[in-house]
């Protein structure tokens, strides 16, 4: 490379780091416009609108009125948002550990080349392809106290099954069960992909050093799956906090308020009570909770080593 050429490149670099001209910005905006408009119209504007709505009282029919922060006070006093957050957290705690452990276990079992492995993998993913609402209707039949399959089978072995969905103890575990069943295969796919990116040589080396299967799992598999784990946990936790369809069909928040998760409460406030302001305030509260939980998760994983395998 000649000195002149280097000089030109240096000059070009200087221009680029300097103040952009109006033309540059226009060109950039032109190229960014399609996605920028999308982000503004479908992401930013709705978020801003929800935040604005959380400060008004409005039934969508009569004129809205500004009420300050009173929606935020009322939803905690009268709509039991505190209780609903606990119920939602309970659901997340029932759902995420079981779902993650089962998905990981399945992935490890199915991460080998045996006859029929692909078939079993497909079987595991099938529930994810089913429509959650349709499945909830089916679970409703299964868990019916007098005519359902579950209690009939329990009856054969002399156990009188409870009224699952009318029981304040059992309703939430049933909802969680339906969702674990639905999403375990989906999460398994990610773990499977993660497992397949771990070089076999690592296990060979470990085996030569005399590490047991269990030792290998905890010292190689789990640490190397950290990026996958982060993704599965973050998306899973966010999705669980936003659970709605299964709850709506299986229990509609009942019995009492035993399964009244946040999204069920938001739906009822907005589309049964037409209290748009309250529903917006609840959405903001849920958003903040999810944001905090997600930041904590990222923090947890950031403080641990991740391994690049290239």
């Amino acid at each position, binding site marked *: 490379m000649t000195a002149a050429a280097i000089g030109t490149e240096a000059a070009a670099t200087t221009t680029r780091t300097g103040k952009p001209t109006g033309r540059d910005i226009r060109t950039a905006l032109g190229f960014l416009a399609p996605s920028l408009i999308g982000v503004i119209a479908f992401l930013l504007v709705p978020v*801003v609108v929800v935040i604005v709505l959380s400060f008004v009282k409005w039934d969508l029919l009569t004129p809205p009125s500004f009420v300050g922060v009173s929606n935020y006070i009322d939803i905690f006093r009268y709509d039991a948002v505190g209780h609903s957050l606990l119920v939602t957290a309970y659901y997340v705690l029932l759902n995420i550990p079981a779902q993650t452990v089962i998905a990981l276990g399945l992935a490890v079992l199915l991460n080998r080349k045996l006859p029929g492995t692909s078939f079993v993998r497909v079987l595991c993913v099938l529930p994810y392809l089913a429509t959650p609402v349709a499945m909830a209707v089916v679970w409703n039949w299964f868990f019916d106290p007098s005519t359902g399959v579950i209690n009939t089978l329990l009856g054969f072995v002399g156990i009188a099954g409870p009224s699952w969905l*009318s029981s304040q103890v059992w309703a939430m575990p049933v909802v969680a069960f339906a969702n674990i069943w639905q999403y375990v295969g989906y999460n398994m796919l990610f773990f499977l992909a993660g497992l397949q990116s771990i070089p076999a040589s690592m296990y060979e080396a470990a085996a030569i050093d005399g590490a047991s299967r269990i030792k290998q799992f905890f010292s190689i598999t789990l640490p190397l799956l950290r990026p996958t784990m982060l993704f599965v946990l973050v998306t899973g936790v966010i999705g669980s906090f936003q659970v709605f369809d299964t709850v709506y069909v299986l229990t509609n928040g009942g019995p*009492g308020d035993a399964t009244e998760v946040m999204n069920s409460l938001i739906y009822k406030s907005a*589309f049964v009570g*037409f209290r748009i302001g309250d529903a917006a305030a609840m959405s903001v509260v849920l958003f903040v909770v999810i944001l905090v939980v997600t930041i904590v998760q990222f923090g947890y994983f950031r403080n641990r080593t991740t391994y690049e395998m290239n």
Partner: protein
Amino acid sequence: MTRRPVSMTRRQLLAALGTAAGAVAGSAALGGCSNAAARWGFSGNPDSAKANLTYALWDTYQQEGYQKSIDQFTAKHPDISVTIQQIPYGNYAPKITASFISGNAPDLFWVNTPFLADWIRQGIIADVTDRVRAANIDTSVYVEGLVELHEREGKLYGLPKDWDTICFYYNKSYFQKLGVSAPTEQLEWNPDDGGTFLKFLRTITSDSKGKTADQPGFDPGDIVTYAVGNTNDPQSGYGSYLPMNGGAFIAEPYAARTVLDTAPNRETISFLSQMLVDEHVQIPYGELGPNADGSSALTLFAQGRLALFQAGDWNTSSISELTSNFEVGTFLLPRGPQGGWTVFNGLTDGTSTATEHPEQTWLLAEWLGGADSQRIMGSGGYIWPAIESLDPLYAEHWKKNKVDVSAFLTAAQGKKSLYPVAVGMAEAVSDVQTALAPTFFGTASAATGLAKAQQVADYRISSGA
């Protein structure tokens, strides 16, 4: 060509975003007022000479009857056509409200009492007082109490079409098998020992060996048929029992608060949620649908798991269809320390304030509130006509079909408690059901449930007003 440098500070960007958000919210509000669908060309009527009306209702049995009635109406008015829109009851009220927001509301629509106040306040249901006066309609022909159900502050919002009361349907074949006959005199309950009502219920609860709850050797762990399925419902369930013990849901229509959490109500709810369950005569509330709302009660009655079905007369059509394997009779609810009561309710048709055909819509409303239509509906066994002189038609229809429904008429002639009405009541009723569910499921006391129910219901009512 001149060029101006484009640069935007973060402050300007935020301002622009704020404006955009405001514009979107503003246009959404405008969309609510004007007929958005029509503006986009989705719901125009090309044949402008003919008024095409939409009539919204929820009951599929009555839909059949109303179709017959409307066929006669349209034959008389060839310039009007009517399409019936059936919406399941569970989603009915939200859907009607939403249809006004989106600008494609039905012209005429069924109104149940708890929805009325909200719809008056939201301005979606028209005041028909002047039209009724102009048409010289004599409102004294209607069963007493109905007109006031559809009134607020002296203004009438629709003509009465039907009425309903709450009684027991009973399984005649099951009674015969047990050798029990339906009570000829009204039974009596009290919160201390349950009275003759509880004694009677024991004689119609039976286990798998055919022993009834009043006999030695009865196995409460193996009950096949329970006597009764009271529900967590202020209309078909506990509602009628509250005034029997001197209590109420709300002291008067449009009161500012409920009167749920009172000593008489605590006694009544304890009797229904505890005593009847402890005595094994009430089916476990867990079998009665979400929050024991009673949605499964009819099925349980048809399956023979319930001897009595405590319900409103609008169930007669579905009962006669579902219970073809046994005969059905009716008798009155028991009377309590303060006498015999029933929740009394009736439906009206609300005329939309957004209709493009107010004259034709009124003609249809007038027809459905009038004698010609109610004669069709009564003699077809679809409803008890609101016009008192036509009531025998309904009873005759069901007599021919071997169901004696006269108990409902007897109840209507006795003491009546109107379905609770207030602004915010639709949501209050649903919240009260949620609050009382733990009480009926036996995990909370009547006092706890009623206190919680009153707190949330009062808030809904006061914040809605």
